[in-house]
């Protein structure tokens, strides 16, 4: 028969942690950042690599979802074309609040090397962005560091009052 090795009485009592509502809500939010699968171009490959076993996004609680209604953070990984711009806005509107946006790579930040008629010169012309990751393409480490910075940003905010809705205009 197995022997219980856990000493429930250590630390002087039952396993209880005291904290504030802010902290526990932010803990929940920042450690289960479900990301909307949004690979638009080559940066999407790096985003997929971050999700795969070597870099293992799951340990941050970041799990890719294929539906905006289940996602908290939109990682815009790639080149946003003008034809696609209305759909990114629609998907952003379908995400439930609180929601965050990470703009990944030069193309999403500024249009990057595609200084042409068909490319949106930065996704922040369409939706508000929380975090810009430089690089072409950023390494998976950059994306993971970006997610950690986003977690810090979430923890720095008060969770009690409903998050102020972000609007571009």
């Amino acid at each position, binding site marked *: 028969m197995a022997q219980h090795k856990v000493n429930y009485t250590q630390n002087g009592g039952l396993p209880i*942690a005291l*904290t504030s509502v802010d*902290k*526990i809500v932010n*803990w929940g939010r920042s*450690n289960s950042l479900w990301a909307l699968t949004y690979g638009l171009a080559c940066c999407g490959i790096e985003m997929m690599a971050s999700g795969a076993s070597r870099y293992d996004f799951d340990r941050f609680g970041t799990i890719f979802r294929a539906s905006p209604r289940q996602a908290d953070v939109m990682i815009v990984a790639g080149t946003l074309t*003008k*034809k696609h*711009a*209305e759909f990114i*806005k629609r998907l952003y509107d379908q995400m439930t609040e609180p929601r965050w946006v990470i703009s990944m790579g030069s193309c999403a930040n*500024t*249009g990057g*090397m595609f*200084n*042409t*008629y*068909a490319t*949106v*010169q*930065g996704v922040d*012309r*369409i939706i508000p962005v929380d975090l810009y990751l430089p690089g072409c393409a950023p390494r998976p480490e950059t994306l993971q*560091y970006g997610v*950690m910075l986003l977690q*810090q940003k979430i*923890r*720095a905010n008060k969770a009690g009052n409903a998050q102020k809705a972000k609007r*571009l*205009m």
Partner: protein
Amino acid sequence: MRAYKPKDDVQAKAYYTDRFYVAPQVPKSSVEEDEIFANDLAVIKAKFEVKDAYIQVEQMVIHINANDIYGVLELMRDELAYTQLSEMSAIDWLAKDDTFEIFYQMLSMTKRKRIRVKYFIKNGQAVDSVEKLFRSADWSEREMFDMFGIEANNHPFMKRILLPYDWQGNPLLKTYPLEGDEFAAWYEVDKIYGKEARDIIGPELRDTAHVDRYDSERFARLGHEVPKGTEITGDEPAVSASYQEEGGVFLVKKLDKESSIVIDDPQR
């Protein structure tokens, strides 16, 4: 070999200026040099008028009349075994003489030969669709319509293929600016937020080399980041990056370099 040009000031100059530059032609040779091409040309000439024919880089090029195209391609497909239309599109000669050149690249798998069929149309004129002969022409003709505005008669679905349906302008015309005209520049803003949003969102920033040290809205000095919109004075304190806040995070263990384990045995 290309003529040598001095390269000392090459970076100061724009690397490309003339969008109407016409590349010199490679040498042409007579069709008689190739037996198979000579036979093919004779068969085509028996039924249709051929304005010009020559061999260029091992391919025969023939110039025909615009309204013969369906008949010529049908003849080539059914009797000459040119069973594939590998590519077709147009070339903009509007600046030279207000015409478009239309070309069809034909491939015969059994003869292992390629023929390019060409004709010229005036600006605004439509071409005859060959979609009934070759399915590949379906999308090619739509792309030609999208990029040059050339319509194809009898095409089953003559709509834009790459750009959105409500786009204005034809980007492969040589007069179309690479960075887009006014319609293109405001397309997504106008469509999503409406014209009155133009002032709020502002024009596109197209200067990729632009860096402004004093603009904290769009730039950050590495290691000295400040909140967005702060006025830059030049003596911003150093900010050290860390994965977690000082003092730790509720329920999350802090990464600590000393206690982390470095795996240096790859065979572990």
